[in-house]
């Protein structure tokens, strides 16, 4: 009787996560090796240590983390798994760094189907492989029914910054251009389209994507002329620019007419009383770029598939009130404020 024999195979098709899968026993070990390690398959996880080791060259690294609580878990253009990989890769990439490794912590509600978990883990594995990063550490917790919403994932990413690059929100300067890599609000609208009490149909799918290759092209074109990059996720473009305004002590002046928004996204926003600049993106970035390099960076963005619709939407201005303002398509001016309240719960 081999030790391996002392175990029944995971029944992916019919199995459900139960409390035993979180209690540190053999059921947990089997779930981790039979489902997660299968999906993420790499040498680090195979060693089954409490931590994974890797060699680094001397230099500058970055670390970032995000929790993913999106509802529903599967949406047009992705699922919580691919989102959790892309989102954290993007936060690494926004420093100009090359993402290297991810960790993933899973909090699973009792009763969650193995089949969904496998689909999600598989898309994480696929997203990581496509991006050339490795998921080298993980953790699984199971909570009682009614104490979570199916599945939450927290991922942490680390990456390495090229020599001489130091992007930071406090580096924006008066006159810098504001570039966005594409149309705004696609992710948020794709999620909304699947929410039970809205249930509209649209061809808009989430833009969820890993942006580090786009970033590499931008860095090649703009170098340290790129002052700041951010991915406008929760709170959308408005939140991102307000944050940067506060950190840099500047204001921004945008041209509404230059901001790319898909007609369907604009329409659903009007219907619901939202503003596309408040809606979440998961595969877009905002870059604040020195004016003399803005055109070169914009051209580099447009040359990359993920930046084909990139646009220059405005500039940094001196304003001790740190207002983000916008010239409306109609010729008036308005403030672009942070999102108030709670309009779109759980888009990421």
């Amino acid at each position, binding site marked *: 009787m081999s030790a391996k024999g002392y175990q029944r195979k995971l029944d992916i098709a019919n199995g459900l996560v139960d409390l035993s899968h979180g209690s540190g026993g053999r059921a947990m070990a089997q779930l981790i090796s039979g489902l997660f390690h299968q999906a993420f398959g790499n040498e680090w996880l195979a060693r089954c240590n409490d931590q994974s080791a890797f060699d680094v060259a001397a230099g500058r690294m970055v670390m970032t983390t995000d929790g993913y609580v999106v509802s529903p878990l599967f949406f047009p253009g992705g699922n919580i798994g691919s989102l959790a990989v892309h989102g954290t890769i993007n936060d690494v990439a926004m420093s100009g760094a090359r993402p290297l490794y991810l960790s993933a912590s899973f909090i699973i509600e009792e009763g969650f189907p193995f089949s969904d978990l496998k689909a999600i883990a598989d898309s994480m594995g696929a997203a990581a492989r496509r991006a050339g990063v490795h998921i080298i550490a993980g953790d699984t917790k199971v909570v009682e029914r009614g104490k979570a919403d199916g599945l939450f994932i927290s991922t942490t990413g680390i990456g390495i910054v090229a020599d001489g690059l130091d992007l930071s929100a406090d580096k924006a300067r008066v006159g810098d251009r504001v570039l966005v890599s594409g149309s705004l609000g696609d992710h948020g609208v794709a999620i909304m389209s699947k929410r039970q*009490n*809205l249930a509209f149909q649209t061809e808009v799918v989430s833009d969820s994507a890993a942006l580090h290759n786009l970033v590499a092209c931008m860095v090649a074109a703009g170098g340290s002329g790129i002052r700041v990059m951010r991915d406008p996720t929760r709170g959308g473009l408005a939140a991102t620019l307000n944050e940067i305004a506060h950190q840099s*002590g*500047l*204001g921004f002046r945008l041209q509404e007419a230059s901001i790319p928004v898909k*007609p369907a996204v*604009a*329409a659903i926003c*009007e219907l*619901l*009383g939202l503003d596309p600049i408040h809606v979440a993106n998961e595969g877009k970035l905002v870059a604040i770029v020195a004016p003399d390099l803005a055109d070169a960076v914009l051209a580099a963005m447009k040359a990359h598939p993920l930046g084909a619709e990139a646009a220059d939407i405005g500039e940094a*201005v*001196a*304003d*001790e*009130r740190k*207002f983000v*303002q916008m010239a*409306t*398509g*109609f*010729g*008036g*001016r*308005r*403030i672009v*404020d942070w999102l*108030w*309240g*709670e*309009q779109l719960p759980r888009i990421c």
Partner: protein
Amino acid sequence: MKYADEFRDKAIAQGIARAIGVEVNSQREYRFMEFCGGHTHAISRYGLEDLLPANIRMIHGPGCPVCVLPASRIDMAIRLVDRPEVTLCVYGDLLRAPGSHGQSLLRAKALGGDIRVVYSTLDAIRLAQQAPSREVVFFAIGFETTTPATAVMIRIAEKKRLKNLSVFCNHVLTPSAMHSILENPKIRDIGGVSIDGFIGPAHVSTIIGTQSYEPLAEQFGKPIVVAGFEPLDVMQAILMLVRQVNEDRYEVENQYSRAVTREGNRRAKEEVSQIFELREQFEWRGLGAVPNSGLELKRAYAQFDAETRFAIHDLRVADNPACECCAILRGAKRPVDCKLFGTVCTPETPIGSCMVSSEGACAAYWTYGRVRDEPLRRPS
């Protein structure tokens, strides 16, 4: 978006702005009240004030149902939610509306109240069907635009014999409020000067028709132009008002003829009149108790009336005394005149309800107006 984008054309807007500039009498001021929050929003959102001559002053009226809802009604809803069997359905705008003592439905929800944001009354029906053991209460709010949706919901609930759906009714009537403003010189005449004309509601008027305003124009001698919510609609309406004033006319004109008729939507009015009847009076924030300005369910529909069903009674609660909402809703003050604006009172932590809805005067000023506050300065 067809029938929307065309009415947002910048070039035409600039032309009309110039036309207005040419037609205004530069020796006088024009004070127009846009009754509706929808117009307030359009004016602010598109920055129309940047296009209008300085002697046209737009006064934001009380036409936002969330803004005029007194704190007592929020408190009553919170009492409902405190009942463990109740699921309260609300339109999203209501979550942050302030009750008394810093309460709100958002806080009641965070404390465990079962509150669901719905997009439509049809969602409330679905919820009631899905959870037969819950008491689903729909927090009905809105002007004549929104009331028919509530009426249809009750009719469907009756047909489906839904026993667990009821309505907490806060529907109010536009003409009554306009009448109340015009009738009361303290409210009507701001700083001793009276309002010169009104932009009449867009979507309310699709239901009630322009004829509803004719007695008002007649009785008080004020021009009223019913206008759409697109910025060009508003520009045109302002031009039409300027012309009436200049020509000493006080007619009801219909700028929004693509959607509004003199009669309105007969079928919707019928739905409403079958189910609702006038309350003797209803409390409006800013206007006080206005006679015949609110609706309640007819006696035949009492089983759908949450106020009857759960025996909740009108609570009298004081609004925050420092909040200038009342004066602002009457057009007597501007948001920046309020000491709390932007310090204690912000959209995240609103003290008055004008700071809640994006159609509220304070919120609109916060989002769109502040840009004109101060000149840009070089950072130190």
